């Protein structure tokens, strides 16, 4: 909603570019994918990607303060929190069996390089 309105304003000043349209379209597509995908880890990765795209959108809208906060908190810290929560869920879901430790180590392998 808000992005659409701002893009209209940008259009009025002749600032709307193909990049902005692509960015807005990708944002909506990634948001839908995030909600629709069944694999929880993929959903988390898509959520983090969505946060980074949203940071780009804020930067394009001329709000670098919000863009930085979105990239650092929305994508970075929230992403780490959600990954940690997912790892915890998987530890509960398969407590005691082989998959618990395997899933956890895989999770941290994914966490690490981010």
């Amino acid at each position, binding site marked *: 909603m808000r992005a659409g*309105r701002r893009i209209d304003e940008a259009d009025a000043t002749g600032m709307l570019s193909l990049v902005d349209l692509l960015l807005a379209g990708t944002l909506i597509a990634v948001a839908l994918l995030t909600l629709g995908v069944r694999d929880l880890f993929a959903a988390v990765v898509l959520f983090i990607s969505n946060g980074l795209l949203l940071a780009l959108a804020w930067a394009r809208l001329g709000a670098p303060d919000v863009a930085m906060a979105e990239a650092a908190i929305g994508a970075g810290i929230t992403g780490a929190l959600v990954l940690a929560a997912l790892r915890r869920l998987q530890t509960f879901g398969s407590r005691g069996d082989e998959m618990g430790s395997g899933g956890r180590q895989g999770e941290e392998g994914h966490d690490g390089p981010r």
Partner: protein
Amino acid sequence: MDLAEAGAARPGRAARIVLAVACGTVAAVVGWALASGGAGRGRLAADVRAALPRSGVEHPVTAVLLNFRAFDTMLELAVLLVVAIATGAVGGIAHSGARPEDLRPASPSPLMDSLVHDLVPFALLAGAYLLWVGAYAPGGAFQAGAVIAAAGVLAHFSPRFRPQVPDRWPTRAVLALGAGAFACAALVALAWTGVYLGYPPAQAGWWILAIEAAATLSVAAVLYVTFRAVMSADPSRRGTQ
């Protein structure tokens, strides 16, 4: 993943319809609010520009967050403090240091050690820079705190450099520092100038820097400690989440 099915029960048809109506209503109201053009949008920007010289900083966003609307920012810090308490972080700190779960190497990789060793100092430096530059350009306490917390999260995955969270009181003090410094500044300003959170304009820049420094530490501590609380799978706290 089977977790999605085994986890929370999927909402029924009626619940979905209620959710859809609620979401649609919110979207319609937000759209209407935007379409009707936020009242006084241009006037507020002009007011901020006019008052900027008396705010103590040169960046309008920081001026609004730390001076003109400082009360809102103080409440945000209080909310963060509540988050840290709600995640059980405050209660769990005392045990978290010595749990075998935590001492177990997270990912015994020399690559991770080297990455943390090289990257974390720069992340801390970037956080300090963001705090300082907030007076002149985009930046400020929340961004700086988030970057520092991200450095902590990164270091968490390296057994050699995992941050040590000290026992209860020092950590609790840092968690409460931001909201506390804000509240103290508000009361001191009240006694000094007679206005709640009304800093004396001549020294406002230093007041803001001091409050932001405290807020940065608190934001970083809250975010990292919350992450740590979610990350640690302590059986004794499983019922409390």
